[in-house]
């Protein structure tokens, strides 16, 4: 009987350990499997890595000369994401400061629930709102001819990454010890001075991590940009240009690319590129958060 107990205990602990390692296994697995599908490109003479990264010519289905350059999509991804971040970062930090430092505690709970609701909205619903609501507004109030463009995508991405930035930035502000606040207030600082001179510098690592995680989410966002940024493959010259991002490119073409063709493999290689970029962003954010925890 006792032996049976010991055996089952050993078994369950092994299972727990296995599950504990599962996240690592999955991250590695994702990398390995996506690379595996893209691997044959290495031996393919019609494909050049330099063309992939530095050419804006994307003609994967052309009959005469196929080109696989994703530079236009890279530019699309970064222009949409950066424009989104210029809107989301000040708003997100401001909202977090209001929630953390200025808001009375009872409304705060309600406002935080609303921010959570914002975070829960599926990306396909954002994309739909982009198609039907914001694109109409853009056409009505600006000189743009089409509403599905860079600005539209950036607006949606800003709204989508705001909840992450707000909640993580608020956590970072709350992690600043109350002694700092008391000391500043005792010296006669206003709450504006307290925020600007004491809290923001003290919480800067956490705030940077919050912004980075929001940035990572915006780069990887697929459905909203697929539906709401238009699909022109070129280098954008103004915020009213339609663009295509790396994620939207995969989502739009994977269904039409037959398995094991070069086109299909190039789409997987784009996936590898996206994985590496978001991995670097998230890893940086993670390292910053960890350094914060161990002063």
């Amino acid at each position: 009987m006792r032996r049976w107990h010991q055996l089952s205990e050993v078994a369950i602990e092994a299972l727990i350990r296995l599950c504990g390692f599962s996240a690592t296994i999955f991250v590695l697995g994702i990398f390995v499997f996506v690379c595996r599908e893209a691997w044959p490109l290495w031996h393919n003479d019609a494909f050049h890595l330099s063309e992939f990264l530095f050419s804006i010519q994307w003609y994967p289905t052309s009959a005469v000369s196929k080109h696989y350059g994703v530079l236009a999509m890279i530019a699309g991804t970064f222009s949409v994401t950066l424009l989104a971040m210029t809107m989301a970062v000040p708003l997100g930090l401001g909202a977090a400061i209001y929630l953390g430092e200025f808001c009375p505690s009872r409304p705060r709970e309600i406002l935080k629930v609303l921010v959570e609701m914002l975070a829960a909205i599926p990306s396909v619903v954002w994309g739909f709102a982009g198609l039907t609501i914001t694109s109409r507004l853009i056409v009505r109030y600006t000189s743009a001819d089409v509403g599905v463009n860079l600005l539209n995508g950036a607006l949606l991405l800003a709204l989508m990454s705001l909840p992450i930035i707000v909640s993580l930035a608020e956590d970072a502000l709350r992690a600043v010890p109350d002694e700092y606040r008391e000391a500043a207030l005792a010296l006669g600082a206003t709450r504006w001075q307290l925020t600007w001179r004491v809290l923001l510098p003290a919480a800067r690592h956490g705030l940077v991590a919050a912004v980075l995680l929001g940035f990572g989410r915006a780069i990887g966002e697929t459905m909203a940009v697929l539906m709401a940024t238009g699909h022109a493959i070129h280098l954008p010259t103004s915020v009213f240009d339609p663009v295509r991002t790396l994620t939207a490119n995969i989502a739009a073409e994977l269904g039409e690319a037959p398995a094991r063709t070069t086109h299909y493999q190039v789409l997987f290689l784009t996936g590898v590129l996206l994985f590496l970029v978001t991995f670097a962003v998230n890893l940086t954010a993670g390292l910053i958060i960890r350094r914060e925890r161990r002063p």
Partner: protein
Amino acid sequence: MSRFAATPQTRTKLRQESAAAGLFLAMLLCLLLPLFAMIADLLWQAAPALNWQFLISSPTHGMRQGGVWPALVGTLYLVTLSLAVAAPMGVLAAVYLTEYARDTWYNRAINMAVLNLAGVPSIVHALFGLGAFVYAAQFGFSILSASLTLAIMTMPVIIASSRQALLSVPHSFREACWNLGASRWQTIRAIVLPNAVGGILTGIILQVSRAAGETAPIMFTGAVFYKAIAPGTLLPYSLDEQCMALSMHLYTLSTQTPGVDPSIPNATAVVLLALVFLVNAAAIVLRTLIRARGRR
């Protein structure tokens, strides 16, 4: 306070302070007003199509009329199945991280992996699901492949909230149990998990809401534009079939279906949003109850 704020300097400072509060409040409102505007617009546009019949009938006339029943059932399938995989694994992973893991390099790597798994773009999850489940494991384009992809994608949600819940169980509870001669697993089963069950449930509910809304990971692994199911049957799909899903249905209606009346995609969006919000509301109520119990 203002009675004592006589000097001009102090008045300036107080004005600054209220200006700052107003500025930050305006920033918060910039974020919340679009939420209400969007929901109001969706409801307004969806009103002509929204009724009970819309929920329980199949799309007809090339999806230009009819309802969302097959998509709703498909979403329930995908969510249930992904939950069945992700919940046990996620909870046990959280148990490992809080109860077993010491501060070694590989456990720090696991923490980084959880953070990174949550940040992998959804379309990369889709590529992984296609490469690993559809082709390598030969599950084909099926509910099974799509659910497994969703499970891996949403597992970090469960790990994060379960870990919070487990960490909030006081250490003295565990020590008391160990002192009675209980082993590590007995302590976890009898003391730690029952005390953390509310927080764990909250995480699982949030996973449900996330999985219900995802589109990209299921688009290439098991969801289809249209699939007829027999009305009235409770379990119309089998695991090796493809299925419709609400999120995918909304995408199809709004981008691939010309000439559809705008009330239909709007109503689909409302159904999807209502599902997600209901599930989230359940999580919030549960969390409030737990906090109230904690205070008593």
